[in-house]
């Protein structure tokens, strides 16, 4: 779980914050921070599908699943996702 948390955090910080995650806590709302819009959601979905092997369906697309690191991790856990190591991910 900690490895997943580190990976999600790293993705968010690298993708949306240009590497500066000083204001980002695990419960910080992406929406309130203004970092995830429709395009950001697509990027996040792409990341979760490729790195965690998830298949994200229409019913999953609610802000509550994607609005913080904690929420993303809870969503991944509910969906039974597992972090793919680099070798496993190919």
């Amino acid at each position, binding site marked *: 779980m900690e490895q997943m948390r580190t990976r999600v955090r790293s993705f968010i910080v690298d993708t949306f914050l240009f590497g500066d995650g000083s204001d980002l806590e695990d419960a910080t709302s992406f929406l309130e921070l203004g970092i995830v*819009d*429709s395009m950001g959601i*697509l990027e996040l979905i792409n990341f979760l599908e490729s790195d965690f092997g998830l298949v994200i369906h229409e019913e999953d697309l*609610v*802000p509550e699943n994607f609005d913080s690191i904690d929420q993303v991790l809870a969503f991944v856990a509910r969906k039974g996702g597992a972090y793919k190591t680099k070798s496993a991910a190919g």
Partner: protein
Amino acid sequence: MDITPAFSPDWLRLDPAEETARICERLRAQLLSPLHRRGLVLGVSGGVDSAVTAALAVRAIGGKRVFALSMPERHSDPDTMRLSALVADRLGLSCHLEEITGILEAAGFYRRYDEAVRRVIPEYGDGWSSKLVVDARSENTGFQLFALVARHPDGDLLQKQLPLQAYLEIVAATNFKQRIRKMLEYYHADRLNYAVAGTPNRLEFDQGFFVKGGDGLADVKPIAHLYKSQVYQLASYLEVPDEIINRPPTTDTYSLAQGQDEFYFALPLAQLDLCLYGKNHSVPAAAVAAAAALSPERVEQVYREIDSRRKGTRYLHQHPLLAAQVPEIAADQITVQHLPAVAGSAIHRPE
């Protein structure tokens, strides 16, 4: 006793003669200063927005000083040229044709577009047509996601969800069209010493439904403060041909016919007009809901979507951001100081 009139489309009624006179006066003043240009160039598409803008331009400065351009390409609706010519004819303008297929080919548009589509439909190629639509997954999510609808040469339709990269590449390629058209408008504006008139209505301007450096680029935008229904009111007053007034708004951007409300707005424009007006004037959602035949919950959702799109497209309106001030060149002052204090002052609410 509450004597406030119920919210209705009548709240968006304006005095078309008064509004026309006001816009024409502004256009003349803007051309004199700060633009210092002798006329206006505009692209006409056969749609009501460009028809009204052209009619206003002719009223403001005379047809001799208005240069209308029709810029179809391989995927354009065949009606585009015919209706553009119809508008020009009604206004006594000659409509100059610039066919942009060759430029698009040279820029690699058709190849790039097809390659992007093949990310989701590998067999896509000659004989196919396609368009973007708002993905049904977007409803009730607060996000806007897109899907690709493609028509097989034998007529079968299929729809695919668009992953990020395919979506970005399709949009990036398609934006060539608006930018090439604008390049040609400025070519003619430069050689004539004219300014370029943009044709967005308020919904498009407010919600960022334009391409930066493409149809978003202009020296004047005479109808950007007008709700779509107000554009139609002016269209009737300015005697725009009925065929154009009655034509459903399209993007005329994709090879498969695409309505604006299935690509970007996800709500018929008449309803969105009421929602945007209601939101801008703090009309309670329940009152807008009754007028727009929507549920109050849906109107609240539309209000949130309006905010979301404003936020997401704000950068489209921005001047280039500088790392430090250049006080000698105050871009904001140049554009803002010439605006009237109250835009849309000719709007009359029912008593």
